[in-house]
């Protein structure tokens, strides 16, 4: 998520391909180093949709089709 742009595709690839996986890991770490939060949209029991916050690449489910990065929350108003 980017101000003035909305959704931006950062990287995509197949986890079964080693080069792709390394690229995805690098991008994941870069985003977290930039202070972003990462979440994986999932479907819980009963069909309820929710998000799962992930703090390392290992936390990302292997069958996840995407990880969404968004700015870290801060107290406002």
């Amino acid at each position, binding site marked *: *998520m980017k*101000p003035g742009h909305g959704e931006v595709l950062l990287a995509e690839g197949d986890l079964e391909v080693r080069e792709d996986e390394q690229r995805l890991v690098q991008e994941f770490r870069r985003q977290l180093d930039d202070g972003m939060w990462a979440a994986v949209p999932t479907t819980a029991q009963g069909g309820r949709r929710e998000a799962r916050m992930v703090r390392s690449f290992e936390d990302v489910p292997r069958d996840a089709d995407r990880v969404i990065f968004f*700015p870290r929350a801060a107290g406002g108003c």
Partner: protein
Amino acid sequence: MVLALGATLIVIVALLWEVSAPRVEETIARWRAGRARVPVDVYDPGRERRAEQRARQLLRSCVNDEEWEMYRDLGFLRVWGGLAAGPEQGGTLATRAGAPYAYIIYPHKPIVAYLPQTRELLAEYCVTFPDLSRPYGSARLPDSDDALAKWMALTGDERHLVGEANMHLPGRQIDPKQVRRDLWRLTQWEQARLRRLAREQRTTTS
């Protein structure tokens, strides 16, 4: 004689320079600034509109049909609270006793916690998602991205988000009358949606 005149002339020139130097420097600075290219981030409504369209598509792909229709029709999302004893900040005796509570998510406004059964407002949680890189001159996410970020943070790690937010009593930022009106609209909307779904089901089975 010549020496005295020369010395006097030097003193006069030095005094004149002292008086006029600031004006000369200012004139030169203005001239340079007038010629310099100053980068200006012009607000582009088309770009913001396209960003919002993309953000709405992303939101739609993440939430379920009911939540998407709620956001599309009413302009806010409802997320049920997941903490057994209610939020530590902003909870009441009722939430500590295990009463179900929920949040209303408005884009770029505080999250409002409330008790659905009584429509009692519990607290406002002020939270922002500032992008400090400011790639397009603004730190503000599109409306739907802001709502989605709150939805993800609440459903993914409610305790953390509530801990990060600044908590206030209801009414500090959003008029409680407006929230209660929105909760009433939500009830009406849910009833109408249930009736519509039942009608569609009857049509399918007959």
